[in-house]
């Protein structure tokens, strides 16, 4: 109700800014192959697409429902590993992606149901610890069952020929790939748009979930669990349901990641660093807003790819001073991120999008 009053009385500048930024990001991603043709920028764009899905699905848990889970990368990894193992054993083909991906998603769903039913009735803090333990066991399993998973090294595999740069989508007169604005219409482009459109679809689906009655119930549970229970909603069922939905979406994002990278290993899917990244992205962007996920991912990813260069420059510029070069060492960028993170949680618990849009994710 208060929301309605707010929007009608004054122009919601912050809200417009957030939507504007998200729109610009969306357009940039949509035309990324044409705007930023170099290979590194394409990596960044694809990573942003996949992580928007992953982070938004995590936001469904932490921001909308108030569940703190550390097992999100476990589901992400299940999708990626399912696809990767199928592609390696069955050879490159869409049937392998379909079969392996579905098995990965199914495994994620089963695990999510088990964890959810077993432990979502306990306190938030217990749940956080249980998911942390589950995720680390999965990590150990992935590195120990090396005959299936490739262990610490992970595994590389080939993806269907349709997605390879050698495949031409539209041929010109010479039989080469047709170029539009200097960009060849080859399989690599098709792969990018496969990743982009799938991510877009998943993101829109999540927007729909959030706007549905289910989303409202989830927010009610976050705000006051007892009251939601008293009104007659089965809190445990709703929590388990959203935990499963988020797990499935994370696993789907994992499939996209596996197909795009043509490599799957603990470092890119399962590791605790990825979980920290996701957590930082959600908090920086703003918990409890889908738009925040987009903003958080873009800022963090750009920082990861380009801030290190900046720190390198800083470290060499201050090389004569004590301690400073150590602190500016590009390997220490997590130190600064951690400090920024702590300050954000203190002063802007609603994150960038949440603060701009003037509605707190959490009180």
């Amino acid at each position, binding site marked *: 109700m208060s929301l309605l009053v707010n929007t009608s009385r004054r122009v919601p500048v912050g809200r417009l800014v957030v939507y504007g930024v998200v729109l610009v990001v969306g357009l940039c991603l949509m035309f990324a192959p044409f705007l930023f043709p170099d290979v590194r920028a394409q990596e960044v764009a694809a990573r942003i697409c996949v992580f928007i899905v992953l982070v938004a699905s995590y936001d469904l848990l*932490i921001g909308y429902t*108030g569940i*703190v889970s550390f097992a999100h990368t476990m589901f992400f990894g299940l999708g990626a590993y399912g696809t990767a193992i199928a592609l390696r054993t069955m050879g490159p083909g869409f049937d392998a992606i379909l079969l392996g991906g579905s098995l990965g998603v199914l495994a994620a769903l089963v695990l999510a149901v088990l964890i959810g039913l*077993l*432990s979502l*009735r*306990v*306190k*938030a*803090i*217990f749940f*956080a*610890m*249980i998911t*942390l*333990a*589950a995720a*680390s*066991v999965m990590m*150990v*399993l992935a590195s*120990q*069952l090396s005959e299936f998973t490739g262990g610490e090294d992970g595994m590389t595999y080939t993806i269907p020929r349709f997605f390879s740069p050698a495949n031409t989508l539209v041929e010109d007169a010479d039989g080469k790939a047709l170029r539009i604005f200097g960009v060849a219409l080859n399989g690599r482009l098709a792969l990018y748009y496969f990743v982009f459109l799938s991510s877009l679809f998943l993101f829109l689906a999540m927007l729909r979930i959030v706007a549905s009655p289910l989303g409202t119930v989830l927010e009610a549970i976050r705000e006051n669990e007892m009251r939601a229970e008293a009104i007659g909603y089965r809190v445990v069922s709703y929590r388990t349901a959203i935990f499963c939905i988020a797990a499935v979406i994370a696993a789907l994002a994992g499939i996209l990641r596996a197909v795009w990278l043509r490599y799957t290993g603990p470092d890119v899917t399962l590791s*605790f660093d990825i979980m*920290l990244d996701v*957590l930082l992205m959600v*908090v920086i962007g703003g918990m409890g807003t889908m738009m925040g996920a987009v903003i958080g991912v873009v800022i963090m990813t750009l920082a990861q790819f380009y801030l290190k260069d900046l720190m390198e420059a800083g470290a060499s510029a201050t090389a004569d001073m004590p301690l400073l070069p*150590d*602190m500016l*060492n590009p*390997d*220490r960028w*997590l*130190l600064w*991120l*951690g*400090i920024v*993170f*702590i300050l954000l*949680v*203190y002063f802007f*618990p609603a994150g960038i999008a949440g603060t701009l849009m003037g509605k707190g994710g*959490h009180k």
Partner: protein
Amino acid sequence: MTKTISDTFERFGGVFLLPVILGLVAFLLIGRPSTWVTLTVAGLAMGMMIFLMASGLSLIFGLMDVLNFGHSAFVSFGAFIAASVLASLGVWVTGGSAAMNILALMAAIAAATAFGALAGWAFERIIVKPVYKDHLRQILITMGALIVAEEIILMVWGGSPLPVPRPAVLTGSFVFGNISIEVYRVFAFLLGLAVYIAMHFALNRTRVGLLIRAGVENREMVEALGFRIDRLFIAVFMAGSALAAMGGAMWAGYQGLITPAIGSEMMILVFIVVIIGGLGSIEGSLLGAILVGLMANYVAFLFPKMSLASNMILMMAILLWRPYGLKPAVKG
């Protein structure tokens, strides 16, 4: 019938029988007494070291409803400080008389513990205090602090594994027939036991302990009776952090080679222990730690690949049986 069984179970010690049962089952599976004794001693020693790390976390949660995900940072710092102190003492550690060895070891453990207490005080004031009563932000902020702490360790000590010199008096092993027991393990077990007895005494026989237990039971009531429970909490937080650092120092000596990941590796086990034992009780922590320590060593011998997963399965099973852990002091 079931009722009779459970009554008998309770009469003979209830959940405290679990480690004994585990030991008996393992004895049947392993078959060779000498191997079994070695594994059991290793398990008990490991359990006691984990107990040091877990008890503080459990008490901190029980008293103030604060779960410190940064707890493992104290373990890491304790390990690295102890390693540095031992390395700097040189000949005191490697040669000389037993008394010098013991002194050097005491110095290392004391340095780690003192640092843990000081860092705990700073941590509580700066990081935890602003976010009391907000679980989500607590988890996030202590996680952020953990990142910063790990980066500081990387900055100061570097990323490569650091060897930890072990005092000469604690190397080697006792030999009885064909059974050999490492001296360090016995030392770790005795130290853990001493800390447990001290904590048990402090909690059950002193006035401060009474207040802490009352605070765990019902904080508002204790506050209403006029006690400054926030001061009590700082003390408990410092003690918990100091214990974690002490556990880290002991663990460093046990491992002989430490990396900055030592804290986060132990943290999983510590969480499992706290969950199994039930939050807020040191008896529960001790029980959970011994169960986890024994389980880890038996399974590592019987089915090497299952080692960590076994503790996870143990946790799941116990949660299904007792959703709040074996000996919880906090209900719900």
